[in-house]
């Protein structure tokens, strides 16, 4: 079960069970919705910005462990960062789960997000890991249409 342990790491299971920043913001500057119609994952990302700095970030919705944990860890990772830094982090995260980057070089920059490195072995689950990030990107870019991973 080596591969399964790679996918369902303790930190992922923990964030799935008790997601951080799981709430709606009262007065968000940006909101975006995303969904993954094939597995029924649905997510909303809320942002409060101070200039281009992410002052508050939260999410709501439901989905599989990978999508929920990814959203939870993402909110922790981008808090206090500029929107440009958040987008750059998404690029690194995306490259990691797609198996396009060298894991060790990336690991330091990604911190806890490196827990999702195992997703690359499960191509059907890559979209679960990416959903929250696509939705964050949409919120930053204030795309009005709901994003979808399909």
């Amino acid at each position, binding site marked *: *079960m080596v*591969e*399964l*342990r790679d*996918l*369902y790491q*303790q930190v992922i*299971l923990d964030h799935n*069970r008790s997601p951080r920043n799981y709430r709606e913001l009262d007065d968000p500057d940006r909101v975006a919705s995303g969904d993954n119609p*094939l*597995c*029924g*994952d*649905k997510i909303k990302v809320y942002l409060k910005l101070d200039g281009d700095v992410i002052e508050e970030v939260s999410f709501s919705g*439901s*989905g*599989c*462990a*990978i999508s929920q944990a990814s959203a939870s860890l993402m909110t922790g990772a981008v808090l206090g960062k500029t929107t440009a830094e958040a987008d750059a982090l998404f690029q690194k995260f995306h490259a990691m789960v797609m198996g396009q980057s060298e894991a060790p070089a990336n690991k330091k920059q990604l911190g806890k997000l490196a827990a999702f490195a195992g997703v690359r072995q*499960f191509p*059907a*689950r890559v979209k*679960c890991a990416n959903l929250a990030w696509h939705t964050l990107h949409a919120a930053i870019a204030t795309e009005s249409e709901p994003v979808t991973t399909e």
Partner: protein
Amino acid sequence: MSVASTAQVQTELDVERVRADFPILAREVRGKPLVYLDNAATGQRPRAVIDAISNFLSHENSNIHRGVYYLSERATAAYEDARDKARRFLNAADSREVVFVRGTTEAINLVSCSFARSGLASGDEVVISAMEHHSNIVPWQLLCEMTGAKLRVVPMDKTGTLQLDEYEKMLGPQTRMVALVHVSNSLGTINPIKEMVAAAKAWDIPVLVDGAQAAPHQAIDVQDLGCDFYAISGHKMFGPTGIGVLYGRRELLEAMPPYQGGGEMIRSVTFERTTYAPPPAKFEAGTPHISGAIGLGAAIDYLGGLDWGAIHRHEKRLLNHAQERLGDVPGLEIIGSAKSKASVVSFVMDGIHAHDIGTIVDQEGVAIRTGHHCTQPVMDFFGVPATARASLAFYNTTQEIDALTDALIEARRVFGRW
């Protein structure tokens, strides 16, 4: 008594023997024997189907109809022979009532476009049920949007059983079409379709039956059911993808306008006027899926060599075993508990999303489907985003259900404590 024991042996399905007919069932997945429990999505193909397609492509491939040479005559005969096999499978009276289509989805679209559209106006109603596959919802929605007709939905109860009294109250002179699923793909419910057709017929309402999930489990008799249209998909009944059958009552097919225009479906064409071929050619524009039809014919022959009674008893045992074993897994809830059920078990697990279940059991070589199964309204009704679904065919075994159960316990372990 040896005579009695021989009779006993003949009535039971020899599962090991039928498994040997399906080459894919011998393979391993991730180092474990494949446990294929996604038969409602697509069935596996017996060697006879694979060989029939291979033989046709190797020795007889050519286009059908109109060819005057040897190969084309052979291909035409094989294609039309497959049509007659489909006629017998459905017990249709006449092979002209058997239209080859891509699958159930195309069959339903054909009926909604060609048959139902012309007669519909604002104030008319189309009746479907709460457990339809999207393919028996969306074509009718499109039709209603186009014509101003209203879509009515027969409700179901918490067991996943249609409420027949509500259905009967819904029918009336305003009802122009009834379209119902025979067996639900996500709940397994077997609807009392003959009774429901009869209720519609009391009002003289045309009825289409989506038989995609019924055909792999039972003999179909369209004359006994009394329906006007019956749709099946080849790949759900152990034949190829891309081929299916629409049965339509002959006088209706004759009166219907064509669905698509093109070659094959004409009698004569001038720039001023085209006259159409009679059914079924009228509805088979373009070169059809010839090898697919031949493969479907081989699947029907294969099923014909089995005993439906024995299949039914085996699948009943599988269903009981699955419901018992899965019901014992802590935190597992089975969705759909109708009295009359095909061997389909949908379930959810406390604290584990269906998609995670699917990934974890896959590590044990177990293939199940997770998601909404193209029945989002059913998921909404039961208040779940998705379910995991084990759908069993006659070649499945109780040991395979045990393998699934063990894998589900592993899923709990992964999510509980590592």
